């Protein structure tokens, strides 16, 4: 049969074929042998005699026949803890051990000797290797067909540092690290509630990366949690190196420049979103947690908005949205006005701009595109450049490109101003992921403005809006609560109402059974005895 048809046939029963593939991969669990030397041989063979697999064999009884081995991966474990709580007790208590051997009660062994936190028996090889490779220590005893896996994880890790991309003036200065355990603990420290639930799984057929989903039971929508779980279970890939892998494999729509999953490196943002009913996904090795479902407006909400006063927060949000628009259509509007709609500029300004552009040989579009591309190159170089030579880029950028281009008469000063404002406006968006999409779409707007002026921009704008409202993140429309319009949730969008006025959680995101998040009468009022009003109090 030709392969084409084979493929087609399989397509009809994807679920079924996936199951069979899974069971093929998953070879029949081979049980652990009672003989220690056989077991050690298997371990060595399976790991290819890797030098970081440490096997320590100890004589545990009064006869040299009674042996035990401690197996761990160097660098993943806390060697000190293993020496103190595992190896030493085994070496010093020969008599007790001998008794256990004679009574044939090796199961008691863990209770008596190992003073580490979590110990559990392992009977098959798959599980043994999984725990060994994730940093657990394995204890094998001669004569027992059971192994014990003890958790003494350790090794070098980056310590908790200040956030580097989501900086805030006020608020906690912690950011996530690469270790999933630390990250989960950081959130747990903020939300001390048994309803904060965590589910863990391993994804990646080769890397076997730890992935955990976290949500607050009773606040998160069950359907969303189920959907997240389902999409994660569906992943069948060799490696998960960063949360970006997960993000790309579970998002709703792939053909869009806009992120439909929120990423954050701050525990307080994660906690705030969990409390609104979102689901967090942590990936081991990634300092960025994923939050779903994400809304477009969420990318404009900086964490500080909630810590500072509402009027100031509202004002800064207006600035951010304005900045986003400028970074989107700034150069496009400039091109449209100078090429098609000169009558829109006040006469005085028109004369100045015309005089500047008089000596420039290119049309406005070419000018703007030259400057934009130069700026994008500068920015990209600035990110990848070694820090030692970082100052070079500002000299080259400011002097050579900025001043030089104007003096050489290649671009007009007005263009440089527009491009510079656009560039700065782009950095005013709190979320890097959405700022980068504006960067991309800006070029489309510039092209449409060059061809059709403001008509092109308006048509582009309509298409952008249509695209945005058609997106969904885990079933929730992306532009909620603006479209579909939810008046009760409008308090936390472009404006931010005072905390005491935001009584309800976001409607489409959190569970509908439990929408109220604060009590009545939370508005603080001054004590009645104070002030000028004395009439009402008798």
């Amino acid at each position, binding site marked *: 049969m030709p392969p084409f048809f084979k493929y087609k046939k399989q397509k009809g029963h994807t679920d079924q074929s996936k199951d069979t593939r899974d069971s093929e991969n998953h070879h029949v669990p081979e049980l652990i042998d009672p003989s220690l030397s056989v077991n050690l041989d298997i371990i060595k063979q399976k790991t290819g005699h890797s030098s970081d697999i440490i096997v320590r064999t100890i004589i545990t009884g009064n006869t040299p026949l009674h042996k035990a081995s401690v197996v761990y991966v160097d660098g993943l474990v806390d060697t000190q803890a293993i020496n103190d709580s595992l190896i030493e007790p085994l070496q010093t208590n020969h008599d007790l051990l001998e008794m256990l051997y004679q009574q044939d009660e090796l199961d008691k062994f863990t209770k008596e000797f190992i003073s580490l936190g979590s110990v559990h028996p392992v009977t098959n090889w798959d599980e043994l290797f999984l725990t060994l490779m994730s940093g657990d220590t394995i204890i094998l005893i001669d004569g027992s067909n059971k192994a014990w896996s003890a958790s003494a994880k350790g090794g070098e890790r980056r310590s908790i540092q200040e956030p580097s991309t989501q900086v805030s003036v006020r608020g906690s200065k912690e950011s996530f690290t690469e270790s999933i355990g630390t990250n989960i603990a950081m959130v747990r420290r903020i939300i001390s509630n048994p309803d904060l639930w965590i589910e863990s799984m391993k994804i990646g057929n080769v890397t076997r990366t730890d992935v955990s989903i976290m949500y607050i039971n009773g606040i998160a929508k069950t359907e969303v949690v189920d959907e997240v779980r389902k999409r994660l279970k569906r992943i069948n890939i060799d490696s998960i190196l960063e949360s970006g892998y997960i993000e790309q494999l579970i998002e709703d729509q792939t053909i869009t420049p806009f992120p439909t999953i929120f990423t954050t490196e701050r525990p307080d943002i994660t906690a705030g979103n969990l409390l609104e009913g979102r689901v967090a996904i942590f990936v081991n090795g990634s300092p960025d947690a994923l939050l779903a479902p994400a809304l477009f407006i969420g990318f404009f909400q900086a964490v500080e908005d909630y810590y500072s006063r509402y009027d100031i927060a509202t004002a800064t949000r207006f600035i951010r949205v304005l900045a986003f628009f400028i970074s989107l259509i700034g150069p496009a509007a400039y091109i449209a006005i100078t090429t*098609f*709609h000169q*009558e*829109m500029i*006040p006469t005085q300004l028109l004369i100045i701009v015309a005089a500047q552009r008089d000596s420039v040989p290119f049309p406005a579009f070419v000018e703007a595109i030259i400057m934009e591309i130069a700026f994008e190159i500068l920015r990209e170089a600035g990110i990848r450049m070694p820090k030692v030579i970082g100052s070079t880029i500002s000299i080259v950028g400011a002097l050579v490109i900025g001043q030089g281009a104007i003096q050489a008469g290649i671009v007009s000063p007005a263009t440089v101003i527009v491009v510079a404002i656009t560039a700065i406006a782009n950095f005013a968006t709190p979320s890097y992921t959405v700022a980068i999409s504006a960067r991309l779409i800006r070029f489309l707007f510039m092209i449409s403005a060059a061809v*059709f*002026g*403001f*008509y*092109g*921009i*308006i*048509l582009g704008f*309509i*298409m952008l*809006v*249509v695209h945005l*409202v*058609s997106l969904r993140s885990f079933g929730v*429309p992306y*532009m909620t609560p*603006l*479209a*579909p*319009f939810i008046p009760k949730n409008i308090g936390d969008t472009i404006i931010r109402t005072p905390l005491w006025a935001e009584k309800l959680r976001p409607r489409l995101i959190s569970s509908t059974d439990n929408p109220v998040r604060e009590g009545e009468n939370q508005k603080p009022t001054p004590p009645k005895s104070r002030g000028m009003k004395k009439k009402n109090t008798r």
Partner: protein
Amino acid sequence: MEKAKISAYQLFVLIVLFELGSALLIPLALDAKQDAWLTILLGMVGGFFLFLVNYRLFHYYPDILPTEYMQKIVGKSFGKLLAFLYILYFMYMTARVVRDFGEMLVTSAYPQTPLFIINALFLLVIIYTIRKGIEVVARTGELLFFILFLLGISGNILIVISGIVDLNNLQPVLEEGIMPVLKTTFTQTLYIPFGEAVVFAMILPYLNQSKKGKRTGVYALGFSGLALTLVVAINISVLGVNLTTRSQFPLLSTIQAIQLDNFLERLDVYFMLTLILGGFFKIGLYFYVAITGIANLFNFKEPSKLAYPMGIVILILSITIASNYAEHISEGTRFISLPIFLPFQVIIPVSLLIIAFFKHKKKRGK
């Protein structure tokens, strides 16, 4: 009929955007001279009546499109013919509105760009939208309605504070008696824009709370009627009857008259561009119902696939519909009211309702 639902608020927004879409742009009801605003108010009342007729029909057949219930009311073959005529009507109207906006752009901003290109681009954006379904159209409406609303308010404030409003231009009221007003109402404003709401007979089945449909529709028609009355009154009071009658696009001329501090002037380009947003919804909805109608009538499973071929038909129709703008606009406001608007917006719905009423009475009698 696609599986989608829109909320009452979304319906409200769509009706308002649809009604204001091109009515703000074109010279409307100027046969009644300075009483144009009065004819619009009267047209609005007529519009309520026509909407309620359509709503009543929807009430009898809440789950199916008009193209389908026509077949149930007047019999299969005649109903199909009627539905087909309606689809032609919707297509024709789509092309008309595309032409309206294309002409506006060519006249006021892009004199050297061919009409064909401008219409083609506009239709491309509309096709892109329509392919995403009515829910997306409705949500887009919610978002853009907000922008248009703010712009409308700021426009009114600017006109008032620049001191160009002269209310004397609106007098005398009823100079030649009530007859010219009534005549204009029944030949123009009843049909454009209020009777055009017959389109929403095709949208009503998507409403998630069908009981709210009546109220929402009446409110939306009332809101857009009042807004339109205000705009027409302002146009006449700023420009005077003579200038308004002669202007191709009265609203743009009014905006052009704004002059503040030598800085805020020539704002008409901004307003022209935002009017495009309104036009987008008018064309979009006409186009959408035309496509859903075809899909429904001919049992086509995927209406979105019709968007491109239909778009080309509309594009060609919009170019060939009239040889120039003057012809186009006088066709629209004078010649097609009686042969096209009257039957499609008034006679057919009303007679359908009467037949349906008796049919239901008979059924209930049994």
